[in-house]
Every structure is written in C-alpha cells, then in structure tokens.
C-alpha cells in the first residue's frame, strides 16, 4: 500500500544532518550534565534475583502497602472487635446458659470464632488488593519484570499471613482481657493462630478468583462481604450447633467456618482434643487444596500471556 518505492535511500547523509539540526534546536531545555550522569549506557540483561529474593521483594511491598493504610487495618478489625465485645456483654448472660454452662463462659466460647472471623476478613481483602494492583497497572508491571510468578504471589500471600497472625493475636489478647481462658495456654494460642492461617487459604483463593474473573474492586468487595455474615451465622461460631434449628445445623455441617471454629474452640475449651482438631484440619486442608488449585489455574492464565 505504500506508494512510490523510488527515491528511497541514497540520502542518508542528508537525513542525518536534518536530525542533528533538530536536536540542536531543542537542546538546552534541561541540564545536560545532570542527564548524562543519570543515563548511563545500557547494560544488557538485568541480573534478576533468586526465587527467595522475588518472594522477599513482594512480601515487603505488600507489607508497606498495609502499613500505609492503617485505616484499613483498623477498620477490618473493627467488626470482629465489636462482635467480641458486644456479643459478650449483650448476650453473655443468656448465651452462657445456652452453651451448657459447665463453667464455660461465653467470651471463651466466642473468642476462637472471632479469630476465624478475622481470618475471613483478611482473606477477603486479598482479592481486593489484587484488583487494585490490576487497576494501578502494578500487576502488569510485575508480570513484565523477570520476577518468578510463583514468587510474586507467594510474597503477597505471606504478607497476608503475617497480617492474619498479628490480628488474630490481637483478638486473643483482647479476649483474654475480657476474661477468656485458653485451656492449652500459650502453645494453644499459637496453634489457634496456625488454624486461622490454614482456614484463611480457601477464602483467600476464592476472593482472588473473584478478583481475576471480575477485575472489578466493587464486585470483589461485595462478593466477600455478602458471604461473610451468613457464613458466620450459619455455623457453630456464635452458638453450639446442637441448639440451632435443624436447617442451620444441616448447612453448618458443610460450612468451612464450622471446621475452623471447632478446631480453634477445642483448644480454648477442651485442651489438645485431637479427635476434634485433626478431622477439622483435614477438611480445611482439602478445601484449601481445591480452592487454591482453582486460583492457581486462573492466576496462571491471567499471568501467562495467553490470549483469552
């Protein structure tokens, strides 16, 4: 479609001259000396980091982002804290009877559920972070860099694990202040944080799948929030399933919250009750594996340059 191929070439000298003139005409806008020092000659290939370096780089960025947004950190703790304080104060007297008395106070009963709630809220924000990264262009910026994809997501996930650990610890501290006692002591408290982390994986994966499929922060926030309260209430979180209506009892049996709460609660109320803890962990791990596989599939598609 280009017309007239004749007359090409042969005038390279003249062309070069024209470019030089142009350059002269526009020089002097900035400080050439300063430019020269900053713009060193190209160097070939960037050295890149090892896998752990990539994980560390991304872990640091997501931690920094979290710290820069203390508001989000506080607000995401607000609901669980309100639940813990108000439920204990308002329903405490009634509920202690409902959970069967026996020296068990409601705050001890409720605290492990609130730890799971914290994990749920933190996991929900994982997808929101991903969507925002996509909207900020940072997702693409990371993909065009030589960093390992797995390292990138591992770094982000580790930063979320750190956040869940800190927030779960705060809840355990607050619960203790309100009078809760952990039957298994400090090792049990650490194990409860561990259960919260294991619990968070499936919901983290879920919220990332919503994020990558919708690429819309509102949709991701709504999907996470809409699910939270029903999931919590239709589980063993606030009252023992035995005293709940039949249909709720049925649903709570397939509700992952129930498994997280039961395992954590056993450590608070009963001690190292492996017969409760191990089956619950097994269910959660299976769930984690299933959801994580789906998430890895979609994240891989979104980041592997395949046209879709």
């Amino acid at each position, binding site marked *: 479609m280009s017309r007239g191929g004749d007359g090409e070439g042969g005038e390279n000298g003249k062309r070069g001259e024209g470019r030089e003139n142009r350059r002269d005409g526009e020089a002097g806008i900035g400080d050439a000396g300063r430019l020269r020092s900053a713009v060193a000659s190209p160097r070939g290939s960037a050295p890149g980091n090892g896998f752990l370096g990539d994980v560390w780089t991304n872990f640091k960025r997501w931690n920094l982002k979290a710290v*820069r947004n203390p508001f989000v950190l506080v607000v995401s703790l607000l609901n669980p804290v309100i639940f813990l304080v108000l439920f204990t104060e308002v329903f405490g007297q009634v509920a202690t009877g409902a959970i069967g008395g026996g020296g068990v106070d409601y705050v001890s009963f409720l605290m492990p559920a609130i730890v799971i709630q914290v994990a749920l809220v933190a996991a929900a924000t994982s997808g929101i972070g991903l969507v925002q990264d996509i909207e900020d262009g940072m997702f693409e910026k990371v993909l065009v*860099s030589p960093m390992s994809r797995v390292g990138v997501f591992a770094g982000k996930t580790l930063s979320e694990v750190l956040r869940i650990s800190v927030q779960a610890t705060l809840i355990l501290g607050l619960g203790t202040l309100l009078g809760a006692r952990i039957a298994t002591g400090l090792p049990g408290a650490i194990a409860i944080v561990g259960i919260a982390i294991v619990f968070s994986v499936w919901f983290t994966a879920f919220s990332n799948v919503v994020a990558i499929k919708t690429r819309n922060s509102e949709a991701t926030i709504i999907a996470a929030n809409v699910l939270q309260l029903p999931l919590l209430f239709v589980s063993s979180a606030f009252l023992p399933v035995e005293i709940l209506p039949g249909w709720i009892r049925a649903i709570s049996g397939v509700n992952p919250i129930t498994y997280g709460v039961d395992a954590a609660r056993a450590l608070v109320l009963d001690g190292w009750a492996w017969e409760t803890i191990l089956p619950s962990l097994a269910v959660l791990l299976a769930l984690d594996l299933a959801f994580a596989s789906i998430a890895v599939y979609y994240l891989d598609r979104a980041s592997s340059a395949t046209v879709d």
Partner: protein
Amino acid sequence: MNAIDATGLELTYADGTEAVRGVDLTVPEGAFFGFLGPNGAGKTTTIKALATLLRPTGGRVAVNGFDAVANPRAVRRSIGYMAQETSVDPELTARENVKFACEAYGVPRAERRSRIDDLLDLVDLADAGGKPAKAFSGGMKKRLDVATALVHRPPIVFLDEPTTGLDPKARNRLWEYFREINARGTTVFLTTQYLAEADALCSEISVILNGEIVASGSPEELKRRVGGDVLEIELDPAASADADRAAEIARRSGLFDGNAAVVATESGLSVTSAEAKRFGTDLLVALRDAGVVVTGFNVRSPTLDDVFLAVTGEAEPETAEPEAEGDSRGRGR
C-alpha cells in the same frame, strides 16, 4: 543483531478478533523507532506481544536475540516497558516505587541508592521522593513510571504512548530524556498518537492499520512518498460550491502531473504535487480568472499528518492536540 526481529507476527483474540495479522518488524539496535496507527489498529497488542505480555498466536518474535515465546524471562530481563496506562503503586512513595523496580530487576544492592537518586533527579522528582505517588499529578506519575522502567538500564525500552495526556512542558522534558537514552545507545520503541512527536523523535517509523504494516521508513522517506509539497488554498466559506469548482479547475489546469492529489478540504482545497511550489501561483491566477474567491493560501512541505492521511485515510490518530513545541510543520521548510 537487531533489537527486534518479528516475522509474521499474528495475534488473534479468543473472540476471533484478529488484532495483529502477519506483522514483520525489524528494529536495528540503537534506533528510535516509532510505531504509529489509528486507535484499534493493533499498536498496543503488538507492543505487548513484543514485551511477552501476550503470547502470539502465530509468527516469531525475537527481542535482543531472545525468542519471546521460548524464553520470555530472558526477554523480560533485557527490556524496559512503560504501559499506556500509568503504572505506579499509589501507596508507595516515589522513592519506594523506584526501589521496588530496582529489586524486581535485581539491580545490585550497592548500586541501588545512587541509581534511585539519579533517576529521581532526572525526572525532577528528587524533592518529592518521599511523597506517596497518589499525591502526584498525572504528569508526575508518568515521570515516575519512566524512572521505574529504566532502573536496569535495558538495551531496549518500549514506550506505549508515554506522553498522552501530558502538558507540553512535561512532554518536552520526557522527549529530552528519551533522546538522551537513545543517544546513549538504548533502542527506543515508541507508540504515539502525536505525529509531531514521532517526527521530532523517531529515526524509523512503521504505520500499522487493521493489524498490518502499511508503511515503513524514515520520516523523511515517508514524507517524500507523499509526492511533493502541499498547496493549501482557503476559499470564501460563503460560496461552498466553490471548492468543487476549484478542484475541477486545478485538475484541468494542466499545471500538475497525473500524480498530483487534488482534494477538497473543509476550508477549501489542497493540492499535493511535486510542482506545487512552481505552479501554485498559476493556479491562484486561474482561480481568480474563473471568479473563485481565494481568502488565503500556503505552500508547505509534507508532514507526517499527510503521510498518515495517505496511508490510513484518517486525518490523525486522535483528535488534534496542542503541539508540544512550536509547530512541527514549520521545521521542514
């Protein structure tokens, strides 16, 4: 070795859209390459395929000698890429953004501090280094984005419409920087909506239309292919029928050879011909004799706008923007 060697590059989306249809591109090392085309022509799709962000559905792409499909990580290590949408982390400070990029590309720890200082200084953000990027204006974010794309001193840098939406001052500053890195040996692959920008910066240009390359060459070669100078004649807007009559007169005058392009324009008439300068006056006289009222005229060298019009049939990739510096049209004279 060429910085870019693409042969038969094809990219068809899952919905069947053939965004890129058999593109051949050769960009020699050190070139300042301009990639032009109307919106939706396939510019960004091509640049993303070259930068390993999209996997081609056909053809071969080698960047810095590395195959983009077989060895994408080697390609990524050796390129800088600045996306069309400004890409900075709004929650990090300018400094932290550049630092993250340094870490992402493995810039040695010992070099990082001076590298960050130099780059921030260069894009005039040294004083704002500690401020979060979300507090920045569009131009500042763009400049920060440039800095992060160059931390590893890549031999080639892809700039996808880097100056879109910037004010002339900010644009000038980026031009200055792009010229400098190119002068230092970095190959630049630039897409732009502003033809004046391509004219001012690029040594080589390719024009893409509907996923295919329709013209390639230096700006001067492309302008020469337009076929001569451009005589623009303004006519009395009150006499709208005059434009067609004037065009008819120009065609029949015998002043210009058969290659001349005579086009009725909004304001009157344009004649593109090798003889535009020589016989322009004669045409004006002929028009006066025929009773056509000429309110203005101008003979100029062809610009990339004329090239663009000729090869794409569109006046400009996008609506006209205020020129970054003076009027590029004046420079050709």
